[in-house]
């Protein structure tokens, strides 16, 4: 029983954080936001060079073979730096789905190799999401047709953009025709793949929300320490302190919830869905609170385009309802714990494992 990360995981995260701090400063995000595709091939290339796209591709397909637990750290970094790229959709959610296909199916090994190399963008159109992120810039799309999973080249899909308040979100509605040529799974296998993708997507967003919360807290602590009113830093006022202490507390107690869910998912735990929903709810609440108290402490400055806080707030508000809104995840939690004979209470924290 060891509910901590190993040195590999921690140092990968550390390296990624250092890398993003210099390579993805807010000024660069603003530039990318303003571009037409909203995506930077250069930044994506650098992230691939750091090994991020290879993170959870199996080693025999050219990847690093790390699992959901590593992603629970990495998605926090993607959120912390508000990376304007739905990279996790390709390198985490889609990679997980493709890796779960039987060997040889639909060019599985080739696709995984390209994911690892960072030479493919895959958008994923899960039924829980009414719109598809990054469809326009994708090379391939994973799309549902009932229980079926289709892997569809971009050229076969009509894309209608749906702009978001978060300029780095590039959402679209799609029109496409399913065919046997694009079908890569169906029936029970398809259902299982979509279910896993949902849990991975949920955790991907949960991790990003947690990273966003931490970033908004850090920005706000810096501001509160430096901004003076009534002759002293506003961070010395108890009301400001208590706002930010509450945010810090939420973040601290959301983290292990995320980690348990990631572990359950990596090990095929039967409780993975409820743990993932739990994680998304608490990470989302931490991020919303960080946004609310963040703008409150920033005062009018927080309401401007110029101050970076706005980018992180908008990402928070937008991501919160993606991969299932709160109602969806609250229902999953309620159904699980209110079920007849649910195994809850002391001693059941880690009970359900593969």
């Amino acid at each position, binding site marked *: 029983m060891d509910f901590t990360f190993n040195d590999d995981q921690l140092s990968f995260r550390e390296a990624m954080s250092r890398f993003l701090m210099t390579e993805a400063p807010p000024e660069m995000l603003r530039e990318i936001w303003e571009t037409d595709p909203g995506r930077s091939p250069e930044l994506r290339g650098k992230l691939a060079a750091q090994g991020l796209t290879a993170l959870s591709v199996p080693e025999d397909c050219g990847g690093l073979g790390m699992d959901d637990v590593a992603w629970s750290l990495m998605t926090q970094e993607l959120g912390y730096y508000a990376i304007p790229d739905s990279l996790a959709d390709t390198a985490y959610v889609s990679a997980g789905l493709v890796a779960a296909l039987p060997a040889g199916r639909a060019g599985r090994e080739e696709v995984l190799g390209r994911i690892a190399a960072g030479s493919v963008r895959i958008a994923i159109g899960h039924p829980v*999401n*009414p*719109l598809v992120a990054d469809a326009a810039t994708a090379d391939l799309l994973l799309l549902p047709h009932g229980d079926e999973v289709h892997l569809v080249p971009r050229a076969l899909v009509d894309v*209608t*953009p*749906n*702009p*978001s*308040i*978060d300029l780095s*979100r590039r*959402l679209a*509605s799609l029109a496409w025709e399913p065919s046997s040529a694009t079908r890569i799974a169906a029936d029970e296998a398809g259902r299982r793949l979509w279910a896993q993708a949902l849990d991975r997507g949920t955790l991907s967003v949960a991790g990003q929300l947690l990273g966003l919360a931490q970033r908004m807290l850090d920005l706000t602590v810096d501001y509160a320490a430096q901004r*003076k*009113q*009534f002759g002293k830093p506003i961070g010395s*006022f108890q*009301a*400001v302190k208590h706002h930010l202490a509450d945010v810090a507390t939420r973040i601290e107690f959301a983290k292990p919830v995320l980690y348990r869910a990631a572990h359950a998912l990596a090990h095929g735990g039967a409780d993975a869905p409820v743990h993932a929903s739990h994680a998304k709810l608490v990470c989302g609440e931490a991020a919303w609170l960080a946004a*609310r108290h963040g*703008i*409150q402490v920033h*005062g*009018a400055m*927080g*309401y*401007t*385009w*110029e101050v970076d806080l*706005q980018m992180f*707030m908008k990402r928070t*508000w*937008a991501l919160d*309802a*993606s991969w299932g*809104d*709160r*109602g*969806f995840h*609250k*229902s999953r939690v309620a159904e699980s714990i209110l079920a007849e004979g649910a195994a809850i209470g002391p001693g059941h924290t880690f009970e359900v494992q593969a």
Partner: protein
Amino acid sequence: MHLAYTDKQKAFRAEVRSWLARNVPKAPLASYDTREGFEQHREWERRLFESRLSMVMWPEHLGGRGCDLIEWLIFEEEYYAAGAPMRVNQNGQLLLGPTLMEFGTEAQKQRFLPRMAASDDMWAQGWSEPNAGSDMAAITSKATLSEDGSHYILNGQKTWSTRAIFADWVFGLFRSEAGSTRHHGLSYLLAPLDAPGVTIRPIIALNGKQAFAEIFFDDVKVPVDNRIGEEGQGWHVAMATAGFERGLLLRSPARFQATARKLVALYQANRASADRDPSIRDAVCEAWMGAEAYALSAYHTVGRLAKGARIGAEASTNKIVWSELDLKMHETAMRILGARGELLAEAPDAGTDAAGWLDGFLFAQAGPIYAGTNEIQRNIIAERMLGLPKS
């Protein structure tokens, strides 16, 4: 306690309702934080003024129709029930207007108020400075009296001036006594924004619009006639205005009752998905209860004002209640909208309602901040209403 409207009040309500039914634009106006929308809203204000409906409480000779506060509440109820446009000149009409009524000379009233009621002059407020936000007494912008005593020379910077980039005039506080500190030595002055030496730089808000501006004064000459109240008494004059600002008029209850009604409708239209989160139905009912309480409180206050009471620290409780209610209602709407919530008006999948709620949600973020942060308001309540000791 007598809760029936008089025949006169009923007739006034009927008149307003009928006028609005005939005049409220069918298509929503463009955002008043854009040049185009600003002028559309000015046009709308002129139409209101032509029917003496822009400032119903002002006396007739200044462009109003001498209504009392009950009639004003009735006007507001009909206005928001009709979904009429946002009021673009409220900073002038509701912050400066009452100040002019109380402290202006007859000549100043005649000069400024009818044009304000007609929105011939659009007004921006000049309260905050970069280092005087919550701490307004830290103002450093200077007004130096000319040697002949005929005019002031203004120097300094104001900020967070709402829509100043489009406005005609600014009102604000300037330090007219050299070497004075805090609340002393300030004067309340009015300046035309096209005067030589005025530079206006827009501040882009969260929503990408030019909702605010910085105003720089570089040896700007304004005649002493543009001073409201006594030289050096600006703080006293402004505080009366700030009282109004935090008080009832700027955020009339009907506005929040209309939002609550819209929220109930949004919930009804999305009930199947909304009920997956049981806290939503509760929040919807709370929204209605909160908006009703705010309206009831307004009627209660208006009744007491009519009997000679004065609004004190209660204005601070008002500010907290409407701003937090508004935020909570818009958060609830965002929860109900789910994945549609983030979409802009131009998104085909946004439907007809989502983008409006998103706009309102962004705007609601500012509620607990402007016109004195809610933290400052809570200090005021604790110290002035409850008598707790200053820190």
